[in-house]
Structure formats: C-alpha cells, structure tokens
C-alpha cells in the first residue's frame, strides 16, 4: 500500500513536472532570445486551454484537432505580441518591457473573463478511463500528458539542433553578438521564438486542462512556478527548464502528500528563496566577475 501510494505520487509528480517543464521551456526560450521575463506567459497558457475548450464545445472538434487549432492560434498570437509590443520596446530600459508584459497579462485575463465568464469549466477528453500499469491505477490522461510532453520536448530538441531555423535560435540564445556578426536576423528569430513558446504553453494547458479545470486564473500559479524553475535552472537554459520542471513537480507532489497539502504551493517559492539566498546567480548560471 505504502509503496503503491509512493509510486502514485511519483506519477503525479511527473505529470505536474511535464506541465511545468513545457511552460518553463517557453519562458526560458523567450528570456534567452529576448532578455524578457514574460510575465504574461501564464495567461497565454490559460488562453490555450480556453481555445481548446471553445473548439470542442462550440464547434464539436475532437480533442486532438482542438489542441492543434489552439496551438496554431497561440503561435499566431505570440508572434503578434512580439511584433507589436515587445519588439518596439527592445531598446527601452528593461523595466519597460517587463511592465508591458504585465499589461498584456492583465489584458488577456480580462478578455478571458469577459468572453467566457469567471466560472470553472470542465474540459472532457477522450482519455478519462483509468488503466492499470505495473499494478498502479492511473488515468489515461495522466499518461498522455507525460508522453505528449516528452514527445514535444524531443521534437523541440530536434528542431533546435537539426533544422537551420532551430540552430539559428539556439545560436542566438548562446551568443547574441556573434549571431549578429554572422548576419542572423534577430527580429525573425524573436518572432519565431515567441510563437513557439506560446504554442508550447497552449499545448501544456490543453493537456493539463482535463485534470484541473479551466478558469481565468489557471495560469497564474503555473506561471509563477515556471519562473521559479527557470531562475533556479538558469534563465535561458533549456535543460535547466526541463530538469527544474520535473524536480519541482516531484517535490510538490511528494511534499504535498507527506508534509502538508495546505502549504504545498509554498514549496516552490520557499525553494526559490532558499536557493537564491545561497546562490544569487541561480543554480546553473555562469560566474559574472
């Protein structure tokens, strides 16, 4: 029994971690390329879930096609945001882009509330059933989340390493000046990155929605935790985002069960405070002086 409960928590941790990682990946990509902490990311996540729900309830789409549409739309929205809001602010003091991100965040939340109300919605997926795996009972959806997340991450990795556009993005994240010298078009890269990041968020939200409900502030906590993750894993570091996401997911799941479920949300932030107190440059950052 004890062992079963433990493994159950591991699975839950992996599920949480998958969602966190996907969101954190988006944020870390945007930060790596544009030096912008995208405070609005959690709301793009939320928008993704709402769009999937919308497609399914309004237009009768099936689960996967709905997700596809949602991701496509979010990619477009992400690119629009980069072009209209963040690119003009690129040379302004950092604080301005951060404030703009806050503004975008407020706007998206208000819009969602206006269009879909503040109630909680259920998103039904075709994977409601539970299955038995290695003696554990888990819902198919949870399994789907983990698998889909891994697929997406592998896909992203292949994209970044094997395609021309992808390696351009990676080059720019690693060495901005060098990238310019070689003639890489920073604007195009930023545009694409924002789009991809938003798409990832939409996917994560749509995958997670059947488990948690869909509501306007569903992105807020996830967003905060994603920031914790990338600060700890190194802002701009892709492996850091993935690793950090899963570590946090597992930590939350385990501490929630074995320590105190009331305070489990605190876990993320307490970890952040502890680590940054001891190592102000984050876990994986390089030395400055």
């Amino acid at each position: 029994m004890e062992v079963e409960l433990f493994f159950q928590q591991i699975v839950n941790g992996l599920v949480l971690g998958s969602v966190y990682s996907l969101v954190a990946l988006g944020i870390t990509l945007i930060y790596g390329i544009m030096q912008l902490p995208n405070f609005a990311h959690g709301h793009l996540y939320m928008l993704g879930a709402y769009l999937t729900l919308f497609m399914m309830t309004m237009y009768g789409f099936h689960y996967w096609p709905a997700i596809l549409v949602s991701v496509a739309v979010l990619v477009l929205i992400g690119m629009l945001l980069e072009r209209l809001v963040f690119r003009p602010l690129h040379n302004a003091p950092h604080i301005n882009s951060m404030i703009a991100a806050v503004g975008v965040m407020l706007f998206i939340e208000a819009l969602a509330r206006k269009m879909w109300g503040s109630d909680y919605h259920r998103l039904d997926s075709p994977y409601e059933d539970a299955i038995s795996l290695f003696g554990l009972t888990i819902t198919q959806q949870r399994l789907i989340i983990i698998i889909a997340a891994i697929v997406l991450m592998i896909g992203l990795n292949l994209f970044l390493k094997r395609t021309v556009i992808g390696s351009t993005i990676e080059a720019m994240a690693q060495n901005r000046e060098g990238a310019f010298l070689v003639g890489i078009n920073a604007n195009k890269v930023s545009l694409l990155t924002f789009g991809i990041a938003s798409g990832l968020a939409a996917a994560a939200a749509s995958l997670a929605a059947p488990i948690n409900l869909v509501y306007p502030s569903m992105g807020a906590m996830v967003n905060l935790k994603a920031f914790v993750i990338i600060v700890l894993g190194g802002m701009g570091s892709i492996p850091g985002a993935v690793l950090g996401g899963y570590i946090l997911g597992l930590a939350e799941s385990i501490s929630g069960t074995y320590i105190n479920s009331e305070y489990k949300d605190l876990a993320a932030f307490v970890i952040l405070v502890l680590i940054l107190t001891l190592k102000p440059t984050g876990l994986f950052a390089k030395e400055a002086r």
Partner: protein
Amino acid sequence: MKKNPVHNRVSKLAVPVLTLIAAAIPLLTSNTYYLDIFIKVFIWTIAVSGMNIIAGYTGQLSLAHAGFFGIGAYALGLLMTKAEMPFLPSLAIAVVLTGLVGSVVGVISLRLKGHYFAIFSLCVGVIILLIIEKWESLTEGVRGLLGIPIPKIGSLEFATISAQYYLILFFLILTLLVNRRVIHSLVGRTFLSIRNSEELAEALGINVMQSKILAFVYSTVLAGLAGALYAGYIRFLGPDIANVEHTFDMLLYLLVGGISTLWGPLVGTALVTVLMQWLQSWQEYRMIIFGPILVILVMFLPYGIIGAFVRRKMKRQWEQEMQENSIERPGMRDQRLAGGELDA
C-alpha cells in the same frame, strides 16, 4: 533634478496650497461616496510613493509591494483586535515590523540583479499572500479579520468618515514632505545614480547594495503605513489585500502619474481612481483597458504625465539657456570635430 528657481517656487507653494484645498473638502461636502474615494486615493498614494522610491528612483522593480501593504494592514489589525492595543502604538509597531521584514527581504533579494530581482520579489509577494491566507490560527485566513476597532488617539475618536479623512490626509502630507526631502537630497541623487548606472555609481565609491537596501526598506515602510491606515479605515481585512493584483494596480498608477517624480504617485493614483469611478458603468471593461493602457503608456509615455511635463520644461529651459549664451549647437560642433565642412 537641477536646482531651478521656478521649479522650487512652485514646489514650495504646492504643498501648502494643496493641503488647504484638501483640508477644505470635507467642509464642502459630506457625501461619503466622494470622501471614501479621496481616502482611498490618499492611502494608495502613500503606498505608490513607496514603490516610486524603489522602482522609480532606484530602478529596482519590486513586485512584492502589495505583500508589504498586507503585512502592515494585518499587523495593525491583529494588534488592535487580538492584542487589544490602542491605535498609535499599533500603527508604529505595524510600520516598524513591515520595515523589519523589508530589511530581511531586501538583504536577500537585492543581491539579485534586474530581472532576477523582479521575479524574486514577485515570489516573495506570493509567499506573503499565501502565509496570510494559510496561517488561519493567526490571521483568520479567508474568513477574514473582522472588527478592527475605531482608531482612537487619546480621547479623540476617529469615528466619522471626515475624521478618518483628516487622519489619513495628515499621514499623506507627512509622507509627501519626507519624500520631497529625500528625493531632493544627496540620498535621492544617490538612488538616481544607481538607476542610471550601477557600475558607475560603484566606481564613484557608492556602496550600491547599502543604498538599494535603504530604498527598499523605506519603500516597504511606506507600504506598511498605507496598509495599516487602510486597516484602521476599512476595519476588516481579507488576504486578498496582499494580492499581486494590487501591486500591478499601483504600478499603473505610478506609470500614469510619472515614475521618479515627486507628484507622479498622487497624480496617477488620483487620475486613475477617479477615472475608474467615472466609468463605473464600464466596470466590466475596466480590466480590459487597464492592460493595453499600461502597454501604451510604457511605449509612448514612459515618463508619465508629470514626467513628460518635467522633461518638456527642462528641454525648453536648456534651449533658452543656449540661446542666451549663443552657444553653438552640439550638432555643428560635432561636424567640426569630425573634420567635416562647416559654414559658420
């Protein structure tokens, strides 16, 4: 920032004149709806001016501000209800306590630069909110802390809304006067230099960390003061007052009014609050326009209303000075430096 006779004259008159006007208002109207709006504007201005010091003048975007507002509010509330302490001591302790927490947070967080600091402060704000919410045995959590007694100083009871108005107005004026002293002093100049270029400030012998902490603690003290006054006015509290949403509200007020200006916080808070009340029927759309307004402000009017005003005045002044001294314009001079043609 330069000493300029016109600016100083206006500034010196502004405070007494505005104080007189503000003091006269409860005498002119007993409409509780209006007075309530004024009081809320006063309270939030105090908090926003604190944010101005750390974000505007010192350039560190602290997103934990609502958290410190909450600490001040709950400190006063708890001291007056559970410890049954009178108003003034509770107020003093609440403010000092907030400052103490602020100093601890500041020492830890200000070692982080730029974005890291903003994110960290955001998390601190959330932690504070969660603690207030979950520590039910102390704060009553989401049930709310009710029944905070009416503030009393000696035998003077601030039972009416007008009385509260004057009490809070007093603290607002005090805050503005202290802020003015701080801003127009070497301390204020030090803050600005840090915002301008931390590296250069260090090279000039300024202990940047120490100054940042000072600015941060002062900003939390003001947030705590505002929170405590709020608690004494509204007389019941819920964890929601420490919500990050309020931090963003305050950011908007600050931006509209003018970041790193003395009057920015007041103008911004007053304008946005009044506007929102006016557009009551648009309450639904309120939040939808908040966001884009922030974005547009930051793109086209980053210095806010007062800021734009100040900059235009400075520019006009400088152009005038140049004409008076018939100094050649730098453009021409540059040409000569570059060895280019010049007909002059």
